[in-house]
């Protein structure tokens, strides 16, 4: 990994506040993040630590009762996007930044065919795309994510797919417009263990092949160790530690990181069984 590679995403002091009936909560407080070209950055932390909210905040995908502030959100080729209006954000979403969420069934529209969903996506970002053209691109994309016989999938609906297939379709959709950066929010949650590895291999492979970068949100340190170059550890809405995976894993500085790493059972370790 070249450590002086071009910076793709630079987030400074990102904060999110959400107004609830019981008052304002701050799930994300002053987060700094950097993603360089060709790099996979893992974001790890317990449930509710603000890791998903952080990436949704960057894309301004949080609801109307939330406020996102940042000193800057610099996206290569687009400048500082922190002040972008919703309409401007739509030129970033999907086109500059792809998004893969957990639970693939939920991500797909249940009423439209898969083909239609590819068409809607391309129609939104390219003027004058024809249905025939869109279908050909969709077929190529499905081939690219390892789906054999994509025609039947294109004519079918989300509920007819298996979980792994649905997530492959979602990944195909997320990369259709060749974004340089991918956000993956726990992309394997809810899938079978064997399928999880396939999906992670697929998505990291797509990143490596095309010279993309990725922010991978997970709570699984094993995934971080296997796939990421750098890791960001979040706790209570703040980044408590970040650095290369090797450094953080071998010599964690923050006590939460130490506990997190300590909680992973190691091979050969004797289990403390109460008698």
């Amino acid at each position: 990994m070249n450590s002086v590679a071009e910076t793709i995403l630079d987030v400074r002091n990102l904060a999110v506040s959400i107004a609830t009936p019981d008052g304002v909560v701050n799930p994300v407080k002053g987060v700094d993040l950097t993603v360089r070209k060709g790099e996979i950055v893992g974001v790890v932390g317990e449930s509710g630590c603000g890791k998903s909210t952080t990436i949704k905040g960057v894309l301004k995908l949080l609801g109307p009762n939330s406020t996102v502030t940042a000193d800057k959100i610099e996206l290569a080729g687009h400048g500082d996007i922190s002040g972008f209006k919703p309409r401007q954000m739509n030129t970033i979403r999907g086109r500059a930044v792809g998004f893969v969420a957990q639970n693939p069934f939920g991500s797909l529209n249940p009423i439209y065919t898969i083909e239609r969903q590819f068409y809607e996506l391309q129609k939104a970002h390219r003027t004058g795309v024809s249905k025939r053209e869109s279908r050909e691109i969709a077929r190529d994309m499905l081939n690219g994510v390892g789906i054999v016989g994509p025609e039947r999938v294109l004519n079918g609906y989300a509920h007819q797919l298996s979980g792994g297939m649905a997530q492959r379709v979602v990944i195909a959709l997320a990369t259709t417009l060749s974004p340089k950066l991918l956000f993956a929010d726990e992309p394997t949650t809810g899938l079978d263990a064997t399928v999880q590895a396939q999906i992670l291999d697929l998505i990291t492979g797509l990143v490596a092949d095309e010279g993309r970068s990725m922010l991978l949100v997970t709570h699984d340190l094993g995934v971080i160790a296997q796939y990421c170059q750098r890791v960001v550890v979040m706790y209570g809405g703040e980044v408590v530690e970040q650095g290369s995976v090797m450094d953080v894993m071998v010599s964690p500085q923050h006590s939460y990181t130490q506990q997190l790493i300590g909680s992973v059972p190691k091979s050969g370790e004797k289990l403390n069984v109460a008698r």
Partner: protein
Amino acid sequence: MTLAPVEGAKIRGPKRASGPWRLVLGRLGFLVAALFGVMTLSFLLVSVTPGDPARLIAGPLADETQVTAIEAELGLDRPLGERYLDYMGGLVQGDLGDSYYSKQPVIDEIASKLPATLTLVLLSVALAAVLGVVVGAVGAYFRTRWPDSVGRLFTGIFQAVPDFFLGLMLIYVFFFVLGIAPAPAGQLAFSETAPARVTGFIPIDSLVAGDTSLFVSSLKHLVLPVLTLGLVYAAYFAKTARTTVGRALNSQQVHFARAMGLPERTVLRYAFVESRTTIVTYAGVIFAALLGGEAIVERVFAWDGIGTWALTGILRLDLPVVQGMVLVAGALTLITYTLLDIVVGLLDPRIKHA
């Protein structure tokens, strides 16, 4: 990169070819069975209901011989089984009996009154659906902000107001105070005569007859009754739409669509197609409930439909009319539900064509 290819052929294929037809045939089979049930119930309702129709018809001053004579005339003295077979036999031939009062065949009376009711109900459901879905969807989109609060206030009020009372208030405001609505005298003013009967639907028939002023008058007479039912049932639509559209707007597929940079218009459409089956179902249920359920509103506006006809029939114990109404409303409801099942099955790919 190692990648295990996935068989596209594993996909559970949609049974497109036979699916819709199997659905339609299955539903029609159920429809026939259910119609038989409705026929039986409409017979039982009048035959074994507590009370003595002959005595009620004869009035409190009648003596036993008069009551017996009425019983014989109505066929009430014959055994139940025989009457049942007679009744069902007649129904199969399209004979619903004759009204005790007008002596006209019930089926003819229904045929002449049904168009007026259908006009009213169809337009009211259309108004209620459009108005209610807009208010509900806007409320869902601006949840807990002012458009939502205003919408919910009106929804709450119109859900609580009895439709016939709202009709009276509208008559007071728009006819008496403002003078912009015609008198509540039915489908046309007293002074006007109905156009030659072609379809039975007065607005259409007056167009066929080439009488534009009659057409306009018939539309004016529709405004208040349609507004009455439309406002009340729009409140129900709004409540349902707010919940279902709200749920769809919060669904992951909508979040994903937004994350893919689809314009807000398309995102809203994604949310709407997810909730449309619920809304269509609701429209069907309301349509069915209004057939007969709008009888009192018909009465308030002197609307000459089957609602008014049935109310009059019930109040003077015209048993064949009561049976006819129950039968027609039951049958129309069943037909509506059957059509609904088919439409929803075609609108939503998730519903299995079983």
